[in-house]
């Protein structure tokens, strides 16, 4: 389209393509370099030979050097628990904000929006004290609990619910559907794209989250992958870089592979979640 719309010669076009590709290659370099060392023997850490022998040895050594299997289970439990809780709690709240009239609605919604600015991520000192008082320190529940009520999810779902035609809502009620029935049969199915988009954002955010899990966990049985990786990479200074790079790829693997497989959907869903 742009060739039609703009007066540009083939030279401009070539420059444009070259710019796009140069940036893409520069952008991939750090990751490509890490991947190179992870799949080659340590001797090739800083030597680039096209036919250097490939090996899975670094991955095996990384996997055996730290309990990554356990970290995986912890992270999967964590992101599943957070997403499930967020979807239930925030769908209910968003529905109330979108379709019910009640005193205090605007004030409460403003308080919800405040969480977009002042998030639990920075209130770590106080939330740690709360978890300590609740006796929840070093549990997976404690990592997730502050994120269950997501202001972002409530906001996003409320916006979506507001676009549902009133007629559908009323028709369902005339048929004798209860309030929760209407929510479940009319609103939730229509909000499926938003829910999917939010789900992707939530899972990738909490898969990658680090500081709060670092603070509240203190044992192998609760640590998620990010915390496990940071401990592995910083305490064992004797570990070779090729092994650390392998461990780095192990922790980000599923998200990376998921992204590469479903790139289009991923980007579209991030776009949907981002548009306000």
């Amino acid at each position, binding site marked *: *389209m742009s060739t039609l719309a703009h007066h540009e010669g083939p030279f401009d076009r070539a420059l444009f393509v070259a710019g796009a590709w140069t940036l893409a290659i520069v952008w991939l370099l750090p990751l490509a370099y890490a991947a190179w060392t992870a799949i080659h023997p340590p001797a090739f850490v800083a030597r680039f030979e096209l036919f250097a022998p490939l090996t899975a040895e670094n991955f095996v050594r990384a996997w055996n050097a730290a309990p990554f299997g356990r970290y995986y289970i912890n992270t999967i439990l964590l992101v599943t628990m957070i997403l499930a809780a967020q979807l239930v709690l925030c769908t209910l709240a968003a529905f109330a904000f979108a379709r019910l009239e009640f005193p205090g609605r605007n004030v409460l919604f403003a308080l919800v929006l405040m969480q977009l600015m002042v998030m639990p991520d920075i209130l770590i000192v106080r939330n740690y004290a709360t978890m300590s008082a609740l006796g929840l320190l070093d549990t997976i529940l404690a990592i997730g609990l502050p994120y269950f009520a997501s202001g972002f999810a409530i906001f996003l779902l409320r916006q979506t619910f507001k676009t549902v035609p009133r007629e559908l809502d009323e028709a369902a009620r005339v048929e004798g559907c209860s309030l929760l029935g209407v929510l479940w049969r009319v609103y939730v199915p229509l909000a499926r794209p938003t829910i999917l988009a939010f789900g992707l954002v939530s899972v990738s955010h909490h898969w990658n989250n680090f500081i709060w899990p670092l603070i509240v966990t203190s044992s192998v049985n609760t640590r998620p992958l990010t915390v496990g990786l940071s401990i592995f990479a910083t305490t064992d200074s004797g570990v070779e870089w090729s092994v650390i790079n392998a461990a780095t790829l192990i922790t980000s693997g599923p998200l990376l592979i998921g992204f590469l497989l479903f790139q289009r959907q991923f980007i579209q869903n991030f776009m949907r979640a981002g548009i306000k």
Partner: protein
Amino acid sequence: MQPTADIDPRTRPLAGAAPAETAAPARRGWRLRREWVQAWLLLAPALILLFAFTHLPAIQTVIDSFWSTPRGRRPAAFVGLANYARLLEDPIFIRAMVNNAIYAAITIPASIALALVMALFVHGRLFGLGFVRMAYFTPTVLPLIAVANIWLFFYLPGIGLFDQIRGIFGLPARNWVGQPATALYAVMMVTIWSQAGFFMIFYLAALQTIPQSLREAAALEGASRWTFFRRVTWPLIMPTTLFISVNATINAFRTVDHIFVMTQGGPNNASMLLLYYIYEQGFRFWDTAYAATLTVVMVTILAVVGIGQFFLLDRRTHYR
């Protein structure tokens, strides 16, 4: 909408003829209240958790900042503004604030500019579009902890790709992360790398809303690509730029994962940022009162950003 109309005395005689209608005001009141109860029940679980882990801790943090840290047998004592006085005399706090200001002043415009360039590159026709877009977006998917490891290796003195490229030009090896002069900038590169692709998505979404007719009109006028961008695209995507700016500002204060892996705020506090300092005071030195005071500063900064956003963006009726 008009509950008063029903109890208007003038309608009484008419309404009296139909008993169902006299019951209407009462039932409406009851239904209205039932709706309130339903709404509050739906909201309760989410709001209780929201208050418990966002609003109450924020208030409690402010209160804590006026008290001393309980240590051993000595309970917390009211100290007034002593913690704040200490802030002003704390060279590390001042260092962290200056660092954070530099960090924000460079990473925000750089990320935004790159995000826009990326979006313009992959919006529309391009040879190998899928690959290029993937290359831009991939860093965003990685955990920042993993990103930090990758870059630590990239920066490795002598061995890292960065120094190898410099070696080709005969430049000496340098310890990018380990020197006070370069540590903060080394960290900033990582931030930009990990977030530019994310912001690109917002710009891509915005570019898709620009009507094709404007392009055609501009083409008829013989406008160049640059003129079209300056006169049409840039003004139209302004709300997106503001939105991204706010997000980038929040990120500049709240995202410090990479500091943990790369520098731990060092060397000699050269890369100390506010949130990392809060962590250090709160969980290394266990000085919770001082950490609370630092958190108040943080909350204030984010609140100002939030209020700023409200005034800048709300004209576009974002929250309707």
